């Protein structure tokens, strides 16, 4: 679609007609000139609104409202809306539809067929009249209206709100549903909304969103309710990231860190060293088996002094082991973690 291509009456250009400034001075002003100017402004407004979106070339945009819902008895409600769309001739227009309630479907359409609700521009006669020079009274003003208004120039009634073939290429779609008897099923199809477009601009494909827990709970539905997921709040398709890895994020690595595999670095701990004398010595001579002494260092330390020194040829010695799970109040796992709460990290993959 080409935007900003509508033409308007030449009341500005000069230099083509000698003695006339502008050139059109003295010319007749045609009724089609006025119609063209009206179209010019309508399309310019519609194109300007479109330019504010991420998809300026798309003719079909719901600025607000237009929600289609079941009103019972095989009828629907449509909330008030403004949309960017077309008129019956394919011209670009802004369309306003007032709130409509208990709208009946075209006869026989409650047979389960897919039904689209559209926003299409139309106009209708204004209320004021005056007498024409031909002697009859006529409405000299028009109002904007929509397909579905029984007083429209094209539209004959609410049946014109509905179509049963996909209007994706011709009209702004407010909703899609089936009505079987009085059973309404929303098929959840709409043209792009301005609200959604703003969210798409804020969170384009590839964006990340961090969902923090809504409550101190181990229950997923309580801590991370559906209502607070990005797919619910911003629309589109989102994929939870790294949810099997229990990880934190670092800005870079230091020399000596664990090597990364596919970007993931294994847990590691600060090097802790220590030393104990393997055999206790006295005066340079071997004097007994291991016991705390001056050569204990690092992560090991001496306990209370003792004179007990077992003979090497009697009794049975025991090895020394280190197991952190035996520490008082030890909390152990496969990796060392700080105190934390769960978060969910999401990535948008589709608008």
């Amino acid at each position, binding site marked *: 679609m080409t935007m900003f291509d509508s033409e308007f009456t030449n009341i500005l250009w000069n230099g083509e007609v000698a003695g006339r400034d502008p050139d059109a001075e003295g010319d007749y002003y045609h009724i089609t000139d006025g119609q063209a100017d009206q179209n010019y402004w309508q399309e310019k407004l519609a194109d300007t609104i479109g330019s504010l979106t991420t998809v300026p070339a798309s003719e079909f945009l719901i600025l607000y409202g237009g929600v289609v819902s079941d009103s019972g008895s095989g009828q629907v409600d449509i909330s008030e809306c403004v949309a960017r769309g077309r008129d019956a001739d394919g011209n670009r227009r802004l369309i306003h539809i007032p709130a409509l309630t208990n709208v009946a479907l075209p006869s026989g359409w409650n047979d389960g067929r897919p039904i689209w609700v559209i926003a299409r521009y139309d106009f209708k006669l204004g209320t004021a009249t005056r007498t024409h020079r031909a002697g009859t009274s006529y409405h000299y003003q028009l109002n904007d209206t929509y397909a579905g208004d029984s007083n429209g120039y094209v539209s004959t009634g609410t049946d014109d709100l509905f179509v049963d073939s996909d209007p994706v290429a011709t009209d702004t779609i407010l909703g899609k549903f089936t009505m079987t008897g009085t059973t309404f099923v929303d098929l*959840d199809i709409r043209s792009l909304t301005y609200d959604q477009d703003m969210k798409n601009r804020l969170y384009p*494909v590839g964006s990340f969103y961090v969902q923090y827990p809504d409550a101190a709970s181990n229950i*997923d*539905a309580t801590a991370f309710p*559906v209502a607070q*997921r*990005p*797919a*619910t709040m911003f*629309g*589109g*398709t*989102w*994929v*939870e990231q790294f*949810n*099997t890895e229990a990880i934190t994020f670092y800005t870079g690595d230091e020399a000596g860190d664990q090597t990364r595999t596919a970007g993931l670095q294994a847990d590691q701990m600060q090097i802790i060293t220590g030393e104990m004398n393997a*055999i206790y010595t006295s005066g340079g*001579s*071997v*004097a*007994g088996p291991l016991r705390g002494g001056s050569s204990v260092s690092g992560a090991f330390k001496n306990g209370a002094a003792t004179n007990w020194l077992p*003979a*090497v*040829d009697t009794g049975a010695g025991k*090895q020394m*082991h280190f197991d952190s799970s035996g520490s008082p109040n030890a909390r152990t796992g*496969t990796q060392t973690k700080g105190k934390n709460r769960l978060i969910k990290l*999401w990535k948008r*993959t*589709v608008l």
Partner: protein
Amino acid sequence: MIYIALKDNKIVHVCETNSEQGIIGSLNYEGITYYDQIQQIPNDYFQGKVGNDVREFNSNFEFLPLSQRKDYVIIPEGMKIEGEEFVPLTLKEKIDQGLITLSDREKYDEVSKQIMSKTVYELAEAGVITIAELKKYQIDIIKIGFANEFINGYFYSETLGINVDLRRCSGKFGEDINDLQNVQGLIDDFDTLENYEKYYVGYENEVTSSMFTLDQLESLKMEMIRCARNRWVKKRLKLVQIEQCTIAEQIKNIIW
């Protein structure tokens, strides 16, 4: 709503979207082509993740009890399923599964259920240390035994009829607790000492002036000298024996 993509019943993609087109777009975005099924999940709080098997879930797409899905579940490294929970593998199981590799100086001890260092004899038998290194170790053991006996050892004195110490050392604060010197001191001052000063403290019992004579002290002194000499001889013989050994088993049996 949640959609999943499966390949051979394994979840390869999970996303939150409003249509099948959404997950297809997401699969394209992620470059995932290896899927054979797409499924909408009728559970907003589906806990399945990439790698889970779809057969781990009931009809409401909630996890089945662990015991019912043990054939499909991904068991975390170092864990096993016991009843309805993951529990750590035992040390033995970790070793058997290759999660822990023992060095040539370590062994798994079935009694203590711990990894222990091999004894020097086992190290020598396994060729980790040389026979020469084992001999040096065993010689140190003999020397330690010898030294320990000169600190804590005792023998039965035929002369006094009690156990007496074989001490040849100084105390913690440098005091003289060399028993041979003590006996020599008694002998040297025997004529000048008062009776109450004439006593000898054995290993467990004490004898006083009325219980021994100067000759008996001289005899005790000789017993102590001979006993010490015997220990020196014993030590020398064992060291010679060690040097003559050729296999670890022989060396191991030479103890103080």
